[in-house]
């Protein structure tokens, strides 16, 4: 009997020792400073704990333990794979600082992430990637150069930048929005910041879109990829290549692409004439590392030609842009001033358009004449960012200055010999200096609350310099009003509360201003095909004002995600075109415009390899002054997707359903209703050889004929499109 008890005790002691051996010990630290982090939340399947004042924690391993989730307010969450066996020593988990996320980042990198829910891996062009962002709609004037519209606010009122650098389209008719001068291979991601809550990169009322470019990589000596592709709907063919060379402290990245499309075919109809285009793009960047410093130099150059815009009166014969920059980054990991980044840049954009391919005898507006137009913008600027890291807070200071010169003119040559030539300036050498400073402060309050405060001031002055341009505008406004100065203050604040470590509720409010664009202030005789009016600028315009609030809830656990945002935007001094007699309108203020809406997105694993994705967005816009809906508001837009992913191949089914839009404007502009439509898409990719990927897709499988509400002149969207692409890495 005594022996039995002894054996039991031994087994018990043995069992206890075994149990002690199944504990996981670790430490959570700040990745930059190495300091231990208190109250970090650590979860392993059903077991969870928090770190102590020095960052240490102990957690019991389970037999099926796989993923250790670590999170802490103010830091990016980390996921670490652990096995079921005990580990000697401590696991060191380093968390990266996170500034409160106010953007939707769309990954667009070369290494296509097919697990990304928005199918952006399948997006071949920048506009198709932008279109997948909820709340973002694209204005179509042709099959090229679609123009983003964010939460009901159109591209002319959005800030679109390239790595924070300001670049302005040269066409007064918005045929060359900033995104038309970049290509997919230039970009690492698109940062879409909706509303006025992120004030660091520009004045925002509708939001900002920052096209973040890909940088030279130091990871490997030689790397890169090549891709060729074809799309049937427009006989569209393209090729692109990226080469990255790195050696010790020097890295170079070069990219080149060429693409060409013929007229595109809408659903079940003949091709739309005059919708072809061709372009090439190249980008070269060199980075050199020093101890604690890095110097970057780069050029981005884009040229497109023979671009047809069937929805407009003119086509683009040539569009050309060059963007040069020199940048410096100084990283000081151990000090409070953690990073200082400065960038000096210069851009030049030229745009030529004409109607030589059009039958001008049949044209209703300005018949029997050709009217070639030329536009040019030069922008030079300086941006500086300083990032300070405190114990539980971050402070970012931004200084942003640019000088813009823009010019556009129009010749009118009649086909009738007795009619003399005509000439006017659409933008008579407008020059603007704009200086801004922004402060962005993030702080972790308690262990579950994060607070963000963002403030910005803008100082600007602009004037029109060409004597003919001055005479044109002074006829209406007087010479004394042509030069203007502005000073505005904007602020936004947000509070985010983390519950259950899986969900976050964030409330944001903002009060912001947007200076009028050079077109709104100084544009002259700009034909708007939507309402048939000639728009004239108004130098006396004051900044637009906005007060916004947004409530967002995000939930994410393992592979389930859900996010819901509701927003309300009250606009004052809203700039619209107001009739000034016969066929003319000028820009003026209207008060009390309201835009509100919601966006919802969710993702669920159906099986281990199948994900279901759903997103929907809705915007409601109303002008109290005109007692009618705001124009160009996209209707309810929903997508459902089913995605199947294995390591070497995958497939996806997508459906997009867009509701009808009957809330239309008739006073501020002339719109018509747009019927509802649904389209279906199929995608597949297969890595059939190492480093070589084949993508096949069929978009608009049903060859549906439809147009988007934001299409100018109801230009239809493409019909069934069979896409193929071959992508080879090296």
């Amino acid at each position: 009997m005594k022996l039995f008890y002894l054996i039991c005790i031994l087994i018990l002691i043995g069992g206890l020792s075994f149990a002690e051996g199944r504990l996981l010990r670790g430490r959570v630290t700040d990745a930059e400073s190495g300091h231990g982090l208190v109250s970090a939340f650590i979860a392993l399947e059903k077991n969870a704990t928090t770190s102590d004042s020095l960052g240490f924690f102990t957690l019991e391993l389970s037999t099926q333990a796989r993923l250790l989730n670590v999170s802490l307010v103010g830091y990016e969450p980390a996921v670490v794979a652990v096995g079921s066996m005990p580990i000697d020593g401590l696991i060191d988990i380093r968390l990266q600082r996170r500034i409160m996320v106010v953007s939707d980042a769309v990954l667009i990198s070369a290494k296509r992430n097919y697990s990304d829910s928005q199918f952006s891996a399948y997006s071949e062009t920048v506009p198709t990637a932008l279109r997948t962002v909820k709340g973002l709609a694209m204005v179509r004037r042709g099959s090229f150069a679609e123009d983003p519209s964010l939460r009901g606010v159109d591209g002319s009122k959005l800030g679109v930048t390239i790595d924070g650098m300001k670049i302005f389209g040269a066409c007064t008719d918005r045929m060359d929005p900033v995104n038309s001068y970049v290509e997919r291979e230039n970009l690492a991601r698109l940062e879409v910041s909706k509303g006025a809550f992120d004030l660091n990169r520009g004045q925002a009322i509708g939001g900002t879109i920052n096209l973040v470019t890909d940088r030279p990589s130091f990871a490997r000596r030689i790397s890169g990829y090549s891709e060729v592709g074809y799309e049937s709907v427009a006989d569209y063919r393209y090729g692109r290549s990226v080469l990255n060379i790195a050696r010790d402290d020097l890295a170079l990245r070069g990219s080149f692409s060429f693409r060409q499309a013929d007229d595109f075919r809408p659903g079940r109809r003949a091709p739309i004439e005059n919708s072809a285009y061709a372009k090439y793009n190249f980008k070269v960047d060199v980075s050199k590392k020093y101890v604690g410093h890095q110097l970057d130099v780069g050029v981005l150059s884009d040229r497109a030609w023979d671009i047809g815009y069937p929805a407009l009166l003119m086509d683009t014969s040539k569009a050309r842009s060059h963007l040069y920059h020199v940048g410096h980054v100084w990283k000081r990991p151990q000090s409070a001033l953690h990073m200082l980044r400065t960038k000096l840049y210069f851009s030049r954009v030229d745009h030529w358009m004409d109607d030589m391919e059009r039958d001008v005898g049949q044209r209703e507006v300005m018949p029997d004449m050709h009217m070639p137009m030329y536009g040019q913008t030069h922008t030079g600027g300086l941006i500086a960012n300083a990032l300070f890291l405190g114990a539980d807070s971050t402070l970012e200071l931004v200084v942003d200055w640019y000088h813009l010169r823009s010019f556009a003119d129009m010749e009118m040559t009649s086909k009738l010999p007795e009619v003399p030539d005509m000439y006017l300036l659409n933008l008579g050498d407008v020059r603007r200096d704009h200086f801004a400073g922004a402060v962005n402060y993030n702080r972790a309050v308690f262990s579950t609350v994060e607070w963000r405060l963002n403030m910005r001031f803008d100082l600007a002055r602009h004037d029109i310099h060409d004597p003919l341009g001055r005479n044109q505008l002074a006829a209406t406004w007087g010479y004394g009003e042509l030069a203007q100065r502005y000073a505005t203050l904007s602020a936004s604040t947000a509070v985010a509360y983390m519950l259950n470590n899986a969900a976050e509720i964030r409330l944001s409010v903002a009060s912001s201003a947007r200076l009028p664009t050079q077109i709104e202030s100084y544009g002259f005789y700009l034909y708007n095909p939507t309402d048939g009016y000639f728009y004239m600028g108004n130098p006396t315009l004051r900044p637009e004002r906005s007060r916004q609030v947004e409530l967002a809830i995000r939930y994410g656990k393992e592979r389930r995600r859900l996010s819901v945002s509701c927003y309300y935007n009250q606009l004052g001094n809203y700039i619209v075109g107001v009739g000034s007699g016969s066929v003319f309108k000028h820009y003026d203020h209207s008060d009390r415009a309201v835009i509100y809406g919601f966006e919802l997105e969710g993702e669920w694993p159906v099986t281990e390899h199948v994900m279901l994705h759903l997103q929907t967005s809705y915007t409601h816009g109303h002008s109290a002054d005109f007692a009618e809906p705001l124009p160009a508001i996209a209707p309810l837009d929903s997508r459902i997707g089913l995605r199947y992913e294995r390591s070497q191949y995958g497939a996806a089914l997508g459906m997009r359903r867009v509701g009808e839009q009957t809330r239309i404007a008739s006073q501020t502009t002339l719109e018509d209703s747009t019927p509802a439509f649904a389209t279906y898409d199929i995608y597949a990719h297969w890595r059939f050889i190492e480093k070589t990927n084949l993508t096949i897709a069929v978009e608009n499988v049903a060859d549906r004929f439809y147009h988007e509400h934001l299409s100018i002149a109801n230009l239809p969207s493409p019909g069934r499109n069979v896409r193929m692409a071959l992508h080879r890495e090296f």
Partner: protein
Amino acid sequence: MSLRKPNLKAVILTCALSVVLLACSDENGIVNPDNELGLISLGTSQVNGVRIELAGPEQMGAGYSPLKVKLTEAASGRPLSAAQVTVVPMMNMGDHSHSAPSEPGLYDVDTGVYDNPVVFLMPGTWVLEVSYATNDGKEGMATFTVDVGQGHCVTLIGDDEERYFLSLVAPLDPSVGKQDIEFTVHGRESMMSFPPIEDFTVEIEPSMPAMGHGSPDNEQPVHQSDGHYVGKVNFIMTGAWRVDVRLKRGEQVVAQAAFDLLVK
């Protein structure tokens, strides 16, 4: 009265139908070497010890013409400032003669000349009878002959059966932007009497026939004095413009005309 702005090209070019030039480079005359007023000498005459010099625009066309008269004592060269000066234009039509509107001479202290604008009602050969009468009893008259080419004057028969003469005073060399637009309106009482009409409402409507539209921000002419109506016209681009003019009494359009201008 507004003067036509000097146009260097016009000075160099000679209009084929323009006036007979009597070259005169008199340093004491109206026409100074710099020709800053855009005027040329139309002739000089001496009557009763007074030298009369007449000057006018280089390109004299039908319509309002800003003539100038300088009077000087022939012996001393001293200008005569206190005189009544009239210029009566006459046209010989063969079976009859008729006059045209003229405005009484106003002495301009700055230039030392008398402003005596007339309205040539039509192109052709006109005789200008320039008369003076001083306070101390001196008087005299000289005649000058001028050839007048095409210009901006139209003869209208109103719906009241009356004859009206509408003349565009400015702008004769229009440019892009907003500028004064001025008309004179005269009626006819007899072959010799053409009084100014001061009670019209004048409406203008500029347009570009090739473009199918006009321009915003014009200011309708308002009567100033002596049949002169002044407003603002806005030309938004270079090219061919047409200015429609309507002469109204109340809501009734009595007469209308159009002027074609080339904006450079």
